[in-house]
C-alpha cells in the first residue's frame, strides 16, 4: 500500500517546516494586509487597491485577483466590516475554498497497483531531478522499493545526476546512453521492474518548454510506451512548477495537462521569497491539485501540500 497523497501527515515538524518556508514569504503580504486594516475600517478605494497589490505581488494574477476582490467587495456591501478579521477571513475562506475544492487524484489507479508508475514533467530548470530524489527518499522511508528511470537523455549529465540520487536513496536505476530515445528507457525500466521487484517506478523526463510541440509529442510517446507495459501507467504525472514562475505557469500547466495528463503539481523552491501564488489560478482554472511542496535542497525537503497551512501561513 503506497500512499503518495495522504492527508495523514500529522507531525508538527512538517507543518512547522512548511510554515517556516511560507512564513518567510508571507511577511510582505501580511504586512500589506495588516496595513490595510490598521487605519480606517471602511473599505475605501485605497484599501482595496493595497489588497489588490498584495495579491498581485504574490503572482496570483490580474484576473483571479480581480474576481476575488469582487467577492470581498460584495461581502462588504452586505455587512459592514467591523474589524480587521472580517475581510481577512473572507479572503482566507476564498483561497481555501479554491485550493481544497480539488481532491488529490491519479489516473483512477487503485493504491495497491504494482509497480506504480510516476512521470515527472516540467519546463527546464524547475527542479524535476531533485524532486525525484526527494520523492524516492520519501517512498523509501515509507517502506517502498523504488526504481528511477533516466528518461532525460538530452541534458548533459542529467543521467549522472539521477544516478547520484539513486545511490543516495537506495533506489534501482535504469538508464541508457545520452541521446537515446527516452521512450526506450521507459520500456527498459518497466520491463525490468517485475524482475527487480520494485513497488514504484519514477520516470525522469527532460525539461521542455510547453510550446515545443515535437518535444511534447515525445512525452506522449513515453506515456504510450508505459501504458503498453503496465496497464494504466503512468498512474501519476507530476508537473514540477517553480514557485518563482509568473503568469506563464498557467500556460505551462495547461499545455502539460493537455499532452501529458498531469495529475498533480509539485511546487518547488518555496524556501525563497517567491510565494507561488500562480497555483491559485492553476487550481481554480484547471482543477489540478497541488500534491507536494519543495522547501529546500536536502532529501527531507518535500512535504505534502496542505491548503489550510498554506493559506494560514499567508495570512496569520
Amino acid at each position: 500500500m503506497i500512499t503518495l497523497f495522504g492527508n495523514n501527515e500529522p507531525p508538527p515538524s512538517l507543518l512547522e517546516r512548511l510554515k517556516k518556508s511560507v512564513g518567510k514569504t508571507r511577511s510582505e503580504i501580511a504586512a500589506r494586509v495588516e496595513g490595510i486594516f490598521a487605519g480606517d475600517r471602511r473599505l475605501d478605494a485605497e484599501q482595496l487597491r493595497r489588497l489588490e497589490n498584495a495579491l498581485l505581488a504574490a503572482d496570483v494574477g490580474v484576473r483571479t485577483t480581480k474576481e476575488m476582490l469582487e467577492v470581498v467587495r460584495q461581502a462588504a456591501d452586505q455587512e459592514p466590516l467591523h474589524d480587521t478579521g472580517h475581510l481577512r477571513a473572507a479572503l482566507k475562506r476564498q483561497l481555501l475554498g479554491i485550493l481544497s475544492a480539488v481532491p488529490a487524484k491519479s489516473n483512477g489507479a487503485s493504491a495497491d497497483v504494482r509497480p506504480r508508475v510516476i512521470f515527472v514533467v516540467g519546463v527546464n530548470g524547475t527542479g524535476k531531478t531533485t524532486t525525484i530524489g526527494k520523492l524516492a527518499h520519501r517512498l523509501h522511508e515509507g517502506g517502498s522499493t523504488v526504481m528511477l528511470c533516466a528518461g532525460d537523455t538530452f541534458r548533459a549529465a542529467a543521467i549522472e545526476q539521477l544516478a547520484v540520487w539513486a545511490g543516495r536513496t537506495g533506489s534501482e536505476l535504469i538508464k541508457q546512453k545520452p541521446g537515446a530515445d527516452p521512450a526506450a528507457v521507459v520500456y527498459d525500466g518497466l520491463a525490468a521492474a517485475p524482475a527487480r521487484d520494485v513497488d514504484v517506478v519514477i520516470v525522469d523526463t527532460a525539461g521542455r518548454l510547453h510550446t515545443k510541440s515535437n518535444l511534447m509529442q515525445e512525452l506522449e510517446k513515453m506515456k504510450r510506451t508505459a501504458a503498453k507495459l503496465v496497464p494504466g501507467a503512468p498512474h501519476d504525472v507530476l508537473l514540477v512548477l517553480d514557485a518563482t514562475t509568473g503568469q506563464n505557469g498557467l500556460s505551462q500547466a495547461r499545455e502539460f495537462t493537455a499532452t501529458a495528463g498531469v495529475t498533480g503539481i509539485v511546487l518547488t523552491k518555496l524556501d525563497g521569497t517567491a510565494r507561488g501564488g500562480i497555483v491559485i489560478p492553476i487550481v481554480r482554472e484547471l482543477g489540478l491539485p497541488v500534491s507536494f511542496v519543495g522547501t529546500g535542497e536536502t532529501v527531507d525537503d518535500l512535504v505534502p501540500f496542505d491548503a489550510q497551512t498554506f493559506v494560514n501561513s499567508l495570512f496569520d
Partner: protein
Amino acid sequence: MFENLTEKFQRVFKNLRGQGKLTEEHLDAALGGIREALLDGDVNVDVADELLARIRAKALGSEVLLQLSPDQQVLKIVRDELLELLGKHAKPVFAARPPSVWLIVGLQGSGKTTTTGKLGKWLTQGHRPLVVSTDVYRPAAREQLAQVAKAVGVSCWPGAGTDKPLEIAKGAIREAKLSASDVILVDTAGRLHIDDELMAELGNLKRELQPSEILFIADAMVGQDAVHSAGDFHRRLGLTGVILTKLDGDARGGAALSIGRVTGAPVKFVGVGEKYDALEAFYPERIVSRVLGMGDMLTLIERAEQAIDQKKAAELERKLRHSEFTLADFGDQLKQVRKMGPLEQVLGMLPKVGPFANLPRDAQVDESRLKHVEAIINSMTAAEREDHDLIDGKRRKRIARGSGTSVQEVNQVLKQYMQMRKMMKQYGALAAQGRLRGLNKVRGALQQMRQGEEATEE
C-alpha cells in the same frame, strides 16, 4: 515574448486613437489598460505603478506636439519609459589585461550551465575561452559543464582534487595563463538570494577573482519575485549584466523590466533555444518596439539579410511594383522564408499592424505543409510558373500526381498565391497614394533605431 502585452497595448491605443485632444479621463483609462498588460506580462506591480505614475505625469505635462496625435504621443512616452528601464544596448566587457573573468550567477534552474556553454561557443569567435564549474553542491553539476564544454569545443578546467569553489577558480586562472586562454567563464552553483552563506561565497569569489563581468542569469518565465532575487544579487555583488534565458517559450518576459529597474544592469544576451548557438544579442529597442506593437522587425530584417539573396530581393520588389509576381517568385520566396528559421519564430517577430494584423499568431505552422507547397510548385512547367492562367483542370491533375499531393492541395496553393498577389497589389497601390503615412513613420523610426544601434556598435 510580450505577445499578449503587444495585443493589449494595441487595444488600448485603438481607444485613444481618434481623440482630437488627450483628456485626463482618456489617459487614465488607457493607463489602466497598460497596467493590466504589464502585470499580465509579469512586470512587478510596484515597478509597473511607478512606471505608470511617470508616464502619467509626462503625458499631462508634455506640450502638445503638433506632429503627433494623442495616442502617438502617449505611445512615445510609454516607449521612452520602457527603454529607460531596460537600459542601453551594452556589449560584454573584457579586462584590460587578459585573462578576463566572467562570473555566471543566478538562482537554481535559471540556465547558468547551458548559458555558460553558449557564451563559450560565442567567445570562440575571436577569443580562447576556458570554462570552469564551481558548483560543488548539485549532483553531477561539474560533470554537466564538462560535457557541455566538450559539445561546444571549449576547454574546461576540471578542478579535480578540491571542492572549494575559490580554489577551483584559481586553478582555472593559472591554467588560463599557461594555455593562453583570454576569457574564463566561472559557472557557479545556483543559490537563493536569501542564503547568506552561499551569497557570501559569491562575494568572496568576486573579491578574489576581480571579474570584469558578473552576469545574472534570469529565467524569462519568472514572475513578481524577480525584483527580490535580482535586487539582492545586485546589492551583494554589483551585477554588470543580465542574460535572459528561455525566451523561446511563450513567457512575456516582463521580468526584464523589473530586473532593469532594481539592478540598472543591461541585458547583454538572450537565450532563445536549447542549441548552443541559440544565444542572441539583446537590443532594448527591439523589445520595446515589440511591446509597442511594432514587432521585432529589426531582428527579422537582420535574419532576412542573412538568408535572402539581395539580388533576388531587389528583383522581387520590382516585380511587386509592376504586379508581375509569378508562381515562380512565390516558390522562391517560400524557399527563402524557410531559410530564415522556424516560421513560428518569424511570424512572432512581425508587427501586429497593417497587412500583418490578422495573421494567426498562436497557430502552429506546419513546416511539412510548406514542403508540399514547394513540391507542387516544382511540379509545374516553367510556362505554368510564369502564367498561372495556363493551369487548367487537366494540368492540375498532372501537378498533383507529380508532387504526390491532391488536386485540392494544388487548388489551395493556387488560391493562396492569388491572395498574396492581390495583397501585394493593394499594398503597392496604398503606398503610392501615401495613405500609409503611419507605416512610413514606423519605418522611419525603425531606420533611426537601426542607425542608433549601429552607432553604439561601432
